[in-house]
């Protein structure tokens, strides 16, 4: 009985160690931006996005609609609503020493209009843009910190 208890103890310790490796939490930041050519206002918090997109796109105005920090745990999707009927869903599907793997879905009326699988280092930002939002265009800036 004593030996079985010892064995069970080590098995539990090993399982706990393995689970702690698999399910370490990753912090992700999702900024939802409305870019347009109406005016020339750029939210100060979006200067980095503006500098990254400025050479690629002709938008003159960048307005922050939402800034969400997500605690991601393995294979558990986290959904961020944008507007009624529109949302972005982020799922942590892999974690390595120097990068994370994320599945990102843009949803409209509950249906995925874009599904992508990306690998991000902690310095890199992925920008997903294009869907119309009023007179402007929606841009999702997603980065991870780990």
């Amino acid at each position, binding site marked *: 009985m004593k030996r079985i208890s010892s064995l069970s103890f080590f098995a539990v310790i090993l399982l706990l160690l393995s689970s702690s490796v698999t399910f370490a939490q990753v912090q992700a930041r999702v900024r939802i931006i409305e870019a347009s050519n109406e005016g020339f206002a750029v939210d100060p918090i979006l200067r980095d996005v503006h500098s990254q997109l400025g*050479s690629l796109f002709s938008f003159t105005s960048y307005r922050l609609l939402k800034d969400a920090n997500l605690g991601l745990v393995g294979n558990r999707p986290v959904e961020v609503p944008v507007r009624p009927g529109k949302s972005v869903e982020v799922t942590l599907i892999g974690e390595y020493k120097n990068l994370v793997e994320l599945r990102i879905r843009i949803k409209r009326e509950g249906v995925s209009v874009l599904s992508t699988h990306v690998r991000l280092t902690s310095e890199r930002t992925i920008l997903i843009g294009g869907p119309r939002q009023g007179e402007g265009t929606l841009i999702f800036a997603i980065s991870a910190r780990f």
Partner: protein
Amino acid sequence: MKESCSGELLERFFDGEVTEGERSLVEGHLSYCRTCQHALKSMEGLRHLIKAPVDEVDEKENLYWVWQRIEREIQSREKPPWKEIVWHWLDVTSMLRKRVWVPAAAAIVAILLALAPSLLKKTPSSSDLSVVEYVESQSYNVMVYESEKENVTVIWLLESPEMEGAPQS
């Protein structure tokens, strides 16, 4: 012993296990019964014969101090090293002897199988991979732009062939 004599009562009297009434009765009887007087003397002689050697030893040796020495000896025995304590706790040798290692090995294999996906998962280096592993859309045409200089990756959804809001370059 006469018919009125009771050997059993006399023995209990000798051992001090009689009531007050029995004691008076026996003492009254002993005052005149030579047989019982003789039997009582025999019992006393026998007791002395047995007890004398024990008393003699007790006088020569102080048993209390002997026992004290034994206790000190037990307490002063050296404690086993911690490795031996851990080994004894794990009791690996008896596990092997009793073949408990069969289920133990099965448990280890099961744990390794459970851990295999995370242990064997290849860690990609950041230099030899693309940021976008795959992208799929039923509603849009998709353009992917990766900039190493800006440390940014852009996925752009194109709603129409005119590509409103598309890159300048």
